[in-house]
């Protein structure tokens, strides 16, 4: 259910055990600057939650809090997913520029203990149209290719919770269509928390919407 102009909340917070992300009065400040106004949020298992709002409204901050990359200044946040079952795609690709696409994914595959790592990496690189560039350094990639590589990294370990911060950024039409298909496949099977400036694009998948103001 849509929400308040301040983005406090858009739906009641259920008390069921199915809730994967639960935030109460979650707030984050950097020094004196408030990056995220107090927000309540509940996302149940399998839901597709879309976060929208203008620049500076705190979308990225909220997603980094959920990802565990930031700690709240105030409020409560519970994320009922093991660290190894969370996939995170942020503004940066989080890959090493002097490693090839294959080496980057192999490193993360080892750290996430991905079974049948090489096969899984190969499938993802093919799906995101990076197979031919697999031996090229990530630093030579275009912004769109880096975003595809970031998506490969985020999906590599088949996460239960996928956090995507403006994932369509820098993707060309083909890349965006590819991501549309990927998200449609994941919808329902994986809990997704996605921020975007283009909510229309994911409207048909969204089960939950949060407007930050």
């Amino acid at each position, binding site marked *: 259910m849509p929400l308040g102009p301040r983005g406090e909340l858009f739906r009641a917070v259920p008390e069921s055990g199915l809730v994967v992300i639960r935030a109460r009065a979650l707030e984050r400040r950097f020094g004196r600057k408030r990056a995220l106004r107090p927000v309540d949020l509940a996302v149940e298992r399998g839901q597709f939650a879309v976060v929208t709002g203008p620049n500076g409204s705190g979308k990225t901050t909220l997603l980094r809090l959920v*990802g*565990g*990359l*930031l*700690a709240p200044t105030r409020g409560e946040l519970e994320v009922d997913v*093991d*660290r*190894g079952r*969370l996939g*995170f795609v*942020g*503004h*940066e*690709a*989080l*890959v*090493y*520029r*002097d*490693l090839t696409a294959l*080496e980057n994914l192999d*490193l*993360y595959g*080892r*750290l*996430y*203990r991905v079974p049948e790592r090489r096969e899984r990496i190969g499938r993802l690189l093919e799906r995101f149209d990076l197979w031919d560039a697999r031996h090229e*350094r*990530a630093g030579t990639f275009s912004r769109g290719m880096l975003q595809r590589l970031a998506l490969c*990294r985020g999906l590599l370990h088949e996460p239960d919770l996928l956090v995507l911060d403006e994932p369509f950024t820098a993707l060309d039409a083909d890349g965006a269509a590819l991501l549309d298909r990927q998200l449609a496949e994941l919808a329902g099977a994986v809990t997704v928390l996605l921020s975007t400036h283009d909510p229309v694009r994911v409207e048909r998948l969204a089960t939950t919407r949060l407007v930050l103001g």
Partner: protein
Amino acid sequence: MTYFADVAALARKDLRLELRARDTLPAMLLFVVSTLVVFHFALPADAGELAAQGLLWLALVFTALLGLARAWAPERESGALDGLVLAPCDRSAIWLGKALATFVFLGVISAVALPAFAVFFAPVSWETVAGVALANAGICAVGTLLAAMAAASRTRELVLPLLFLPLAIPLVVGGVGASISDDPGRFLAFLGLYDGVFALLCWASFEYVVSE
């Protein structure tokens, strides 16, 4: 065993990055050799071997500082540290992998610096070699942690020496002592104790450096 598999994967990644980019090691090699050459000409002819031993340790510590300043650069440039922090591996494995890779770099530096010292100044004793190996371990343990702390700061180039050099003083004392003392075992034991204590502290505290 998965912990050590993670450490090995992370250390291998750092070695591969350096072999490919050659950002740090060549600069460190050039620096340590240049420093020894400068000291060779700066030191009066009758200064003696004791003064030269002190200069060797200065050269090694400042060369290590040069390398430590770049230690977390690959993670900083691409946000890859967030990727590592998100991974389910123990966060201390990130520190240990980086420290091991840095230890290898310092080993290469020492393998060049000690023969160069022998050419310019005086023969190198086994006590000096043992002291350098132990001091390198301490430098890697402490320096890797402090470099990670400094990497989060905008003034990292200033912060790292300010944090590192005071903590390197015991290493210099122990190293010089091992090189010139009649009882080097005492100083080598001191360096071993320093390594053990600080490695444990850094291993336990790295989690708090990379998380809020």
